[in-house]
């Protein structure tokens, strides 16, 4: 290659790079301009962590399962950055590793059976841990020494977690929200629960659980506006190994939660019809 050729190639590459930077600059400007037009933006962290009289973080507040601190469903002008609860690149969430028989059971469900199994359709309580994994509505937490009250907007469900150090019952009743014991690890409240009603699903994808389910929730509040909830699911009859969620962030709302008794889902009738059609097709 002659010196002239080298200079020509170099000049071409430099022009291409300059063009790319210019185009990218235009893109960045247009992205910035789009960002300026968003009316619903990510909620900043806010002030320091509020604390109870005993010095532990105070989790009191109304919490939204998104980054905006307000509703984002069905709204225009939402910054996409304000929607997710975690960054899949920064904190990837591994899929659950099912036992072969569990996977076969899940795969055998038809699309309609899957739909009918969902709490959002059948109006059954989501239960723990689903209430922290598959709940688009808000949760109001009232926290005081010895007690963490969780008021779930969806279905008007509630859960009281005693944080007075009481142990798990030896023979727990099967509850939708389980039976819990707690401990503090620094500023993290660790809640371990066993004894779950078997009618709930971990995720709305057919991921059922057994009577051996153990759930560990880890709650932190790194700042005024953020609540972080991490879930670990142990269920040796269903999973090959424990499953851990990403640290999911909930953001502080204005305190308003609304009544949401699920009493009359007309979708059930239609879905039952579809299920009957599926059964006929199987025959």
């Amino acid at each position, binding site marked *: *290659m002659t*010196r002239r050729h*080298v200079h020509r*190639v*170099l000049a071409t*590459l*430099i022009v*291409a*790079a300059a063009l*790319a*930077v210019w*185009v*990218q600059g235009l*893109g960045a400007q247009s992205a910035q301009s789009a960002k300026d037009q968003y009316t619903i933006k990510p909620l900043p962290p806010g002030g320091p962590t509020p604390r109870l009289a005993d010095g532990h973080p105070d989790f009191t507040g109304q919490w939204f399962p998104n980054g905006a601190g*307000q*509703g984002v*469903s*069905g*709204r*225009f002008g939402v910054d*996409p950055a304000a929607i997710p609860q975690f960054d899949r690149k920064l904190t990837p969430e591994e899929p659950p590793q099912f036992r072969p028989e569990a996977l076969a059971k899940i795969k055998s469900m038809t*699309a*309609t059976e*899957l*739909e009918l199994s969902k709490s*959002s359709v059948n*109006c059954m309580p989501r239960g723990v841990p689903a209430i922290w994994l598959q709940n*688009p*509505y808000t949760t109001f937490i009232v926290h005081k020494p010895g007690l963490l009250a969780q008021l779930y*907007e969806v279905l008007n469900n509630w859960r009281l977690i005693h944080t007075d150090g009481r142990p798990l019952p030896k023979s727990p009743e099967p509850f939708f929200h389980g039976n819990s014991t707690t401990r503090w690890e620094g500023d993290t409240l660790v809640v371990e629960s066993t004894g779950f009603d078997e009618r709930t699903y971990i995720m709305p994808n057919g991921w059922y659980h057994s009577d051996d389910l153990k759930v560990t929730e880890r709650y932190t509040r790194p700042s005024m506006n953020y609540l972080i909830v991490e879930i670990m699911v142990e269920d040796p009859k269903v999973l090959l190994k424990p499953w851990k969620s990403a640290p999911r962030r909930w953001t502080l709302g204005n305190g308003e939660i*609304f009544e*949401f*008794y*699920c*009493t*009359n*889902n*007309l*979708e059930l009738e*239609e*879905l039952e*019809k*579809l299920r009957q*059609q599926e059964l006929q097709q199987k025959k």
Partner: protein
Amino acid sequence: MTTRNVLGVAAVTCGAVLLMAIPSAAHHSFAAEWDSTKCRDFTGVLRKLDWQNPHPYFFVDVKENGKVEQWSFQAYSPVTLRRNGTDRQVFLDNVDKDVWIRGCLSKTGKAHAAAAGTLKFSDGVMRQVGQIQD
């Protein structure tokens, strides 16, 4: 630095810059009950509202082929509608007024029933009242 090295560095730099300029993409999903391949526009007069959980229904007299038939439309939950600015009062204020709706038909073929995605009342404001499919 040799000529070959200079060219190599320049090529890598250009490639990196060009890669950074490529935007990323996203996607979404739809429920089992409604047919996203059968979505259409409706125009008519809003007649009544059944505000309940988990889904409110509103009823619209739709005039087609010289005939008026009442359709029911399913919407988001009341909580979601309240938070997105299309609450019960907005619907009540528009009873007996014109409405435009984009909605999808039921998979079972249920007559005169659809899931509403977007709608406009007579103020012309586009409102999202359910999942948008197209």
